[in-house]
Each structure stands twice: as structure tokens, then as C-alpha cells.
């Protein structure tokens, strides 16, 4: 029976702990305290028992897990290395940065770099500009997004689906197609130019970014998940669409709205191209433009990397703080982009 059902190389035998074959022995199973405790069933495959095969498989599994962890951790270290290097370089003296032997920790911690950067780099102005632009472009985007997503998710009108397809199709168009003409448009509004003041520059940096098709798509998906019964119930209670939107849908979709807010804020913090075009005075600049256009060089024109890196740390830290506090919302918002394919 056994020989038929298992591999031909397999042999079933009774052995005691010294591997002595007990095949010929008479074992009295009925009698307590007999040989039974010394006997184990061993199944062999080739020369090795399955038990030892299982053991080696287990060892291989542990080894490969360790190897996997080593590789992943190594790659993670490579990924965070630029951040580490940014921080330690910002704390090094210029001589140490240029030395032929690189050090992985500053021999003398130069906090002076930061003091110097705060003195020369107009951080406060750039920061205020960035925050003002971020707040107002986020608010505008939220309002337009909520309205449009509500119309697409709840209301009925002729050509709804085809209009939404047109919206989605615009996501494929590279922004560069619009930048040229938008620049001319905002210039004709008087928002850019020699006599443009800070308010004009703000408007030029805020208004063109009040629409985001991607966020409309994201919020519409979320609105559609809100059960129909809620809408019917509120209708029966005599609530208007407007009330339903603000009292029921917006609170229920608040996680998505938080994601949108943070992503939009990060987008403004990182925006470089458009502000670089429209903010033609240094006091209008946003943080990225301020960073790139500030020169950290000594009299001979050699770059002062210590100062430069201190400035980049100052620019990066607020983003990291945002990430620490809102990690869940950021990763969810970004990740949602891929789920639907």
C-alpha cells in the first residue's frame, strides 16, 4: 500500500534514536512502558530523511529572509542617503566639505551655517509668500473641486458622462501647452509686468491653479461611494442639494479632502516653473525659486556648500513635518491614483 502511494525512493522504516533499524523487533503496543516511546516513524527520500529536508528548507527560508531584509535595508539606506548627506553637509565647515577625505559625521558641528543662512537667505519672505499662495490656491481648488465632483457624482444633466471624459482627457495634455498662453493671459490682466505689485503676483500664482481634474476625479469617486439612501432620506426630510452637500457629503468625504489639501499644499511648496516665470521681483518669489536663485558662493565664486545645504534643509524640513503628521492621508491620496489603473 505505502509503496504504491509514495515516491519509489521512499522507504518507511521504524528506527530508534540511535538510528538502529527496529524492523525485526516485536513491539507490544498494548503494553504501557514498552519500546513505543523509543520508536519514531522516518520517511526517507533518497538518502535524506524528509525531516532533515524540512530542516534544511527551513534554514534556507530563514537565510533568504535575512538576505531579503539585508537587500531591502541596504536599498532603503541608499534612498535616505541624500537626506543624510544634506543634513551632515549643512553642519560641516567649508574646508571639511572640500577635503580629500569625506567624513560621514562633521568633526566640528557648524550651527553657524544656519545662522548665516537665516541672515543672508530671505527665508521669511519666501515662506510667507509660499504659505499665502498655498492657502488660497488650496481653498479655491477645494471649492471648485467639491462643486464639480458633486455635480458629476449626484446630479443629472445632459452630456454628463461625455463631459467627464473630456475632463479626464485634459489630464493627458502637458502643462507646457498652456503655460505659454497663460503667461500672456495673466500679463494682460496686469498680474505680471513692471508695475505688478505683490497682490498681482499672488493672483498670478494662485488663480490659474484653482482647477485640478485629478482631484475632481478623486473626490467624485469618493462621493459616489456615499450610499444613495442618504440622499433619498435627506430629500424626504426636505433638505436641498446644497444642504446635503455640506451637511452630509463633505463631512463623509473629509479624509479625501484632507488628502487633497495636503497634496495641493505640497505642490505649491514644490512649484518652481510657473512662479519663476511670473514672479519677476525677488520679494515675490516662492521658496523653490528663492532657493535656486540665491547664490551661496565665496568671493572667488566657489560654491559654499555648507550654506547651500543649510538652506535646503530649511526648505525640506516643513515638508517632512507635514509628512510625519499626515503620512496616512498623503500616501492614501497618492496611492489612489494607481488603484483604478
Amino acid at each position, binding site marked *: 500500500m505505502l509503496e504504491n502511494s509514495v515516491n519509489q525512493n521512499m522507504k518507511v522504516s521504524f528506527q530508534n534514536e540511535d538510528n538502529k533499524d527496529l524492523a525485526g523487533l516485536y513491539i507490544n503496543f498494548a503494553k504501557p512502558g514498552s519500546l513505543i516511546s523509543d520508536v519514531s516513524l522516518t520517511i526517507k527520500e533518497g538518502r535524506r530523511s524528509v525531516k532533515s529536508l524540512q530542516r534544511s528548507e527551513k534554514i534556507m527560508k530563514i537565510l533568504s529572509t535575512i538576505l*531579503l531584509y539585508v*537587500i531591502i*535595508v541596504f536599498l*532603503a539606506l541608499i*534612498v*535616505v*542617503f*541624500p537626506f543624510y548627506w*544634506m543634513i551632515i553637509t549643512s553642519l560641516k565647515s567649508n574646508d571639511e*566639505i*572640500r*577635503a580629500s577625505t*569625506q567624513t560621514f559625521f562633521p568633526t566640528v558641528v557648524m550651527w553657524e551655517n544656519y545662522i548665516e543662512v537665516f541672515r543672508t537667505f530671505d527665508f521669511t519672505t519666501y515662506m510667507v509668500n509660499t504659505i499665502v499662495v498655498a492657502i488660497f490656491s488650496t481653498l479655491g481648488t477645494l471649492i*471648485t473641486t467639491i462643486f*464639480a465632483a458633486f*455635480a458629476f457624482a449626484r*446630479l*443629472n*444633466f*445632459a452630456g454628463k458622462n461625455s463631459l467627464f471624459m473630456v475632463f479626464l482627457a485634459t489630464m*493627458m*495634455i*502637458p502643462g*507646457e*501647452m*498652456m*503655460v*505659454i*498662453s*497663460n*503667461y*500672456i*493671459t495673466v500679463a494682460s490682466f496686469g498680474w505680471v509686468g513692471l508695475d505688478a505689485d505683490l497682490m498681482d503676483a499672488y493672483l498670478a500664482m494662485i*488663480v490659474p491653479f*484653482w*482647477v485640478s481634474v485629478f482631484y475632481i476625479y478623486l473626490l467624485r469617486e469618493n462621493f459616489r461611494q456615499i450610499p*444613495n439612501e442618504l440622499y433619498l432620506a435627506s430629500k*424626504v426630510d*426636505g433638505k436641498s*442639494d446644497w444642504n446635503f452637500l455640506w451637511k452630509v457629503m463633505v463631512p463623509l468625504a473629509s479624509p479625501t479632502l484632507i488628502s487633497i489639501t495636503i497634496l495641493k499644499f*505640497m505642490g505649491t511648496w*514644490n512649484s*518652481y516653473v510657473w512662479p519663476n*516665470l511670473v514672479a519677476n521681483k525677488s520679494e515675490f518669489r516662492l521658496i523653490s525659486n528663492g*532657493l*535656486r536663485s540665491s547664490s551661496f558662493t565665496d568671493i572667488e565664486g566657489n560654491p559654499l*556648500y555648507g550654506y*547651500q545645504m543649510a538652506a*535646503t534643509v530649511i*526648505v*525640506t524640513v516643513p515638508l517632512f513635518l*507635514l*509628512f510625519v503628521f499626515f503620512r496616512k492621508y498623503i*500616501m492614501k491620496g*497618492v*496611492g489612489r*491614483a*494607481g*488603484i483604478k*489603473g
Partner: protein
Amino acid sequence: MDNSNIEVNKFEKLESKILINNQKLESKETSSLNDKQIKALEVENEYLKNIIETNKTLDKEKEEYVDSLKDDFNVVVVSRRNKDYVYNYNGLKNVKDDDAKNNWKAWLYLAPVLVLMAVFLIYPLIDTFFISFMKDYNYVLRTYNGFTLDNYGFILGLTEINGGYEHRVIDYAIPNTLIICFITVPVSIIIALLISVGLNSLKWFQKILQTIFFLPYVTNTIAVGMVFAVIFDRNGVINWIFGLDKDWIKGAARWDAMLPLCIYIVWSSLPFKILVFLSGLQGIDKQYYQAAQIDATPKYKVLTRITVPLLSPQILYIMITSFIGGFKEYSSIVGMFNNPGTADGDYSLYTVVYYVYDRMKDNKVHYAAAAAVLLFLLILLFTALQFAVSKRRVHY
């Protein structure tokens, strides 16, 4: 469908109660029921019959009312409290509410988006297209000398304008853009795929490591570009680790500068890809892997035969978005190099987008527009190609 059935079920309890009462009444001689009890049973039966009757007439009324509406809708929901509110199955239409009323309401909700899109998206799109054909366009005065194809001819190095040929697009911008795309997109997709498969199989610290790999997403492109410039400096840490004495950034040869640039682009594009792949991997049914395990399938085969095909929608999505991203590479070059010049020429790090912005700054908006339209066409072509090629290979 089977309304009578529902009716029976609805009153089943009440009717059975009546039956039991009747049985009790019939056997009143044999049992020891007194007059009071018999009276009570009779009253109860009367009462129950009344309830059933009333309900049935009410239901009939409602059915008739719903039937009268059935010409318009398949399924009708009637509010119990207020018969003014009747909804069709989709729950979207209020019958009393005029369709048209809701229609203009919807357009009102869409108005802000539509106005902004018209001004800052649709109009510029058409405008840019026209500008790209305008001769000597002046954006301040909005004047031009008729329409021409010369803008395209000029940027492609075919037409001579003002005694000069433009060679920077053909020599630098287009080749650089294509090289960046064809190096960084496959490399970053493969690395991201391997990392996410690795991450997905981890038991401990998965969340922490996932967060670490996401970190590059939360950065300022300009700021980290400057960090990479420091890392790849002649006296920087890369040269020191590998014992090299080479210029990568300042005064580097064109192809030497391309390497750190591509590394930076891959580094900064990894987090988004890993996030998308991981969410895709977590959606794959575990049964496939269990089946492979029973068959003792080697690991690389599990990857190529199960994981990659099941992840193909995400891979296609990532491929298309990162090709588009690659075509628009600009900020990373500004962040790292600050100007497009290398030892091999002042514009040797131009990309198409870099060219567009530089021409805008020179007030040569018509050339910028022509280059932008060219970029748009390139992106359209590559996206269409990817869709066509992937049609057979992507499993939805």
C-alpha cells in the same frame, strides 16, 4: 415579480393567529373555555381581520398609485411620510421636480470649474496652437505677420531665420529627452517592481520600510537636486567612495552629466511607483501564490508568470505616466545644474521643456509654442503606441 407571494407572507402571522383562534372556538364544548374567554377570542379575530383588510386596501391603493407611475420608471420609491416625493430607481430624479430645474442646477455647480478651465486650459490650448504658426509674434502687443510653417521648420533646424539655423532642438533637446525617457523609465520600473515585491513579502517592519521608500516623494525637486549636485561634486562623496576623479556636474562632459541626472530622476520617481505597485500587489489573490507553492514553482517564475501579468494594469499606468513625466523633465536639471551647459556645449543639457521656457524668456514665444506643440505630439504618439502595444499584454 411574485406579488401574491409577498402578500401571503406579510399577513401570514395574523392569519394563522385567526386560524388558531377559530380552532379554539370550534372546540369550545370539549375545552373548558368560559364565556368571557370566548368573547375575547371573537373580538380578537374581528380586530385582526380588520387590520388585514385595511392593510390590503392601503397596499392596493399604493400599488395602483405606483402602477400609474410605472410608465415613466422601472422601479419607484414612494416616501411614506410625504407622497410628493417619488424617486425612480436611481434615486436621482424628483418626479415633481422638473428635470430641467436640476439640469441648470448642475451647470451652476460646474460653473466655476468650467469658467476657469475655459480661461486657463481650453483657450490657451487653442491659442498656443495658433501662436505656433504665427510669424514674429509679439505677445505684449499681440501682433504677428501672418501664418507660416517656419516656426516648426526653424526649431527643427530646417529653415533659416535671421541668417541662422536652430540646432539646439535637434542636437540636444529631443535626443536628451528621449535618452532620459528610455533610461529612467525602464530602470525605475524594474527597481520599483523588485523593491515592492520584496517589501510585500516582508513580515516585520513592512510599514516602516514602506514609509522610508516613500520619503523621496515628499521633497522639493530643486532642493534635493542641489543635494545631488553636492554628492556628485568633484570633491564629493561619490568620487571619494569609488576612488574617481571625475567631473559630474560642473564642467562635466555631456554624457557624464547625464548619469547623475538619470540617477536623480530614478531616485525621485521610485516612491510613487512603489506605492502604486504595492497597492496592486496587495490586491492580488493569494491563491495564485499558494498554487505556485504547491507546484514548487521557482521564485523567478512566480515573479514573471504570476506577479507581473497580474500587475500589468498598474505597470501600464505607471509606464504611461512616467513616460509623460520623462518628456517633461526640467526642474531636476535646474535643481542639479542650474544651467543647461556642460563642457560639450552651452545648451547640451537642453530638454524640450527647457527649450520652451528659455525661448519664452527670450520673448520668442512663437518658437516656444511650436516646441510645445511638438512635445504634445510626441507625448500623444508615445501614449498611443504604449496603449497599442499593451493591448494584448495587459490583463484587466
